[in-house]
């Protein structure tokens, strides 16, 4: 029987059967059912925007990870593993684990005790309205734009992989997300993210298992990669002593200080898209355990993302290339490696599950963007700046309509990108401008009681402007990268890391200087917001194996062991 969806299909990578389409249709039906079921449980502001603050550690932790585990993340990093080798794993290990544990053990108590609805909300409590306004407006603006860019990129993937028209993918996925988030609020987004987490693993896990079987195990895989690419492709740290001895063209200082100490801390501890999931935890122990659970699973993600990329190097008969040369030559690009591996091993049913995993990954990222945008717009822009006297019911309605509006703006951005592809580069770069300085502002606010409102505001502003300036400098004169990354041999991957490092330092320096020159708040005003002036509540009288500190120690031990094993 000819599947009904076949009418959309043109040239594409994989061919789906009826059972594959049945799995995809069932997925859409299930996420909409969950949204419909939860519609009656999102009637108050706390319910709609904060999921009633009653999520368990497991639900909050898996949703925290799932919001980050988008389809582009899966496909992009599998492509990076093919291009750069196992070094791409740094973005999952040193580029995530220490930051997630820091969030759990150091920063989460302050977010949680302050009962803030958002990260900009914390800045309001700590530094005042100007800092919140800068952070809320930039976050809301960037979140919907990023969502649109991701939407376009995902539609493009569906066009290449399945032959679906761009508009079909954009509208079907965005309307589904709009419906289930508008109906059930953050609780619906979180529930679906946990479901999507399971689907991503169920759909992607078989590729590395079968790939390792075909390659003859890890040892044989390393030999084949060394023959077809280079010995450096299977070492995490060994080639990082110089910019010229590794495929990424980066130095270990960039990985450790730029990625590990600044970029990842900025993303995992201050990006409200992920932090919002933890704020919905039911108690302080769950709020601390959730990022630790997320970190535990984050360490495993390279198995379904990086390993397929490495396996592609060894077993795929064709040579993949960069995007530009792939378009020119009609060959496959690095980013096609995951769908190619999927098509290599997965027959009817499994193929549908794999494609569903990609769709689920995309939708979980989009739902994360939309729910975070809705909360920041309603609580940090609309309520303080436009209508401070609305009822709780009014703000919930505003949240529902903002969800729909946010999705429509994202769709508009997707169409804009469709007609002017260069916008995509700008938007992706713009997002990175805010992360590192925001981390500097938040962490100083939490750990240094002398930091003042004007210090926080000017530090955030100057850090962000310095980041934009460095990006513009390198954009107009690519040779300037040698100054930003401190080496004439630095390659493009090094830029983000050093840019983040310098903008963080600018933010911290300006915050300290301005704070020392201005009047600090009293200790009483800072209670519950700053380390040393806040009594952090105990996680309760629980056995040691239920304490967050114990599991954080386990995660860090495994993290160290993995880095040594794959050194």
């Amino acid at each position, binding site marked *: 029987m000819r599947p009904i969806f076949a009418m959309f299909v043109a040239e594409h990578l994989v061919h789906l059967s009826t059972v594959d389409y049945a799995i995809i249709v069932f997925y859409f039906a299930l996420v909409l059912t969950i949204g419909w079921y939860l519609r009656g449980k999102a009637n108050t502001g706390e319910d709609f925007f904060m999921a009633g603050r009653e999520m368990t550690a497991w639900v909050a932790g898996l949703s925290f990870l799932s919001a980050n585990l988008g389809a582009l993340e899966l496909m992009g990093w599998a492509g990076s593993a093919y291009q750069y080798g196992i070094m791409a794993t740094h973005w999952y290990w040193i580029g995530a684990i220490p930051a997630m544990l820091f969030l759990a053990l150091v920063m989460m108590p302050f977010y949680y005790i302050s009962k803030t609805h958002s990260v900009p909300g914390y800045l309001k409590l700590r530094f005042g309205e100007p800092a919140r306004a800068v952070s809320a407006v930039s976050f809301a603006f960037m979140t919907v734009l990023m969502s649109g860019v991701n939407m376009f990129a995902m539609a493009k993937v569906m066009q290449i992989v399945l032959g679906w028209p761009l508009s079909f993918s954009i509208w079907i996925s965005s309307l589904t997300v709009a419906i289930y988030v508008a109906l059930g609020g953050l609780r619906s987004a979180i529930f679906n993210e946990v479901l999507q987490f399971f689907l991503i693993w169920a759909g992607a896990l078989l590729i590395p298992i079968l790939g390792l079987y*075909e390659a003859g195990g890890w040892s044989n895989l390393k030999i084949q990669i060394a023959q077809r690419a280079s010995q450096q492709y299977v070492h995490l740290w060994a080639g990082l002593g110089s910019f010229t001895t590794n495929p990424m063209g980066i130095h270990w200082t960039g990985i450790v200080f730029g990625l590990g100490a600044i970029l990842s801390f900025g993303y995992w501890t201050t990006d409200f898209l992920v932090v919002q999931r933890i704020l919905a935890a039911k108690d302080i122990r769950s709020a601390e355990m959730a990022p630790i659970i997320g970190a535990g699973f984050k360490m495993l993600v390279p198995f379904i993302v990086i390993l397929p990329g490495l396996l592609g190097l060894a077993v795929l008969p064709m040579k993949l290339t960069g995007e530009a040369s792939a378009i020119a030559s009609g060959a496959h690009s690095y980013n096609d490696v995951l769908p190619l591996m999927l098509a290599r091993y997965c*027959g009817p*049913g499994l193929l549908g599950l794999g494609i569903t995993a990609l769709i689920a990954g995309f939708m979980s990222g989009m739902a994360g963007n939309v729910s975070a945008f809705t909360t920041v717009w309603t609580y940090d822009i609309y309520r303080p700046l436009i209508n401070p006297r609305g009822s709780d019911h009014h703000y919930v309605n505003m949240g529902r309509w903002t969800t729909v509006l946010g999705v429509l703006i994202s769709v508009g951005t997707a169409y804009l990108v469709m007609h002017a592809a260069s916008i995509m580069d700008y938007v992706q770069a713009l997002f990175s401008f805010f992360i590192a300085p925001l981390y500097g502002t938040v962490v100083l606010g939490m750990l240094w009681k002398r930091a003042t409102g004007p210090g926080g505001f000017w530090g955030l502003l100057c850090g962000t402007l310095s980041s934009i300036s460095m990006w513009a400098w390198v954009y107009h004169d690519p040779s300037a990268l040698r100054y930003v990354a401190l080496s004439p041999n630095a390659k493009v991957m090094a830029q983000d890391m050093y840019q983040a490092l310098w903008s963080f330092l600018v933010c911290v320096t300006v915050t300290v200087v301005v704070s020392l020159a201005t009047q600090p708040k009293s200790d009483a005003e800072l209670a519950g917001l700053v380390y040393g002036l806040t009594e952090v509540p105990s996680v309760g009288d629980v056995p040691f194996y239920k304490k967050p500190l114990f599991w954080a120690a386990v995660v860090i031990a495994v993290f160290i062991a993995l880095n040594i094993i794959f050194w």
Partner: protein
Amino acid sequence: MISIWFFIGISLLVNGALILAAGIYQLVNPPAEINIQLFDLHANMWWGALLFVLGLFYCTYFRPRRS
């Protein structure tokens, strides 16, 4: 309130059943042209069975109960 784990169980159960059925069908009626690697392992059959069993466990253990 229905647990999220119950919904996950439903998802695994249905997907597992569909994939298992597709795998059994391919075992009984092998395609004339095999265009995937390691076809002989019949991965869709045992992977589908695994998801089905896992889904059955989640559906049973987290089924909605009267309070």
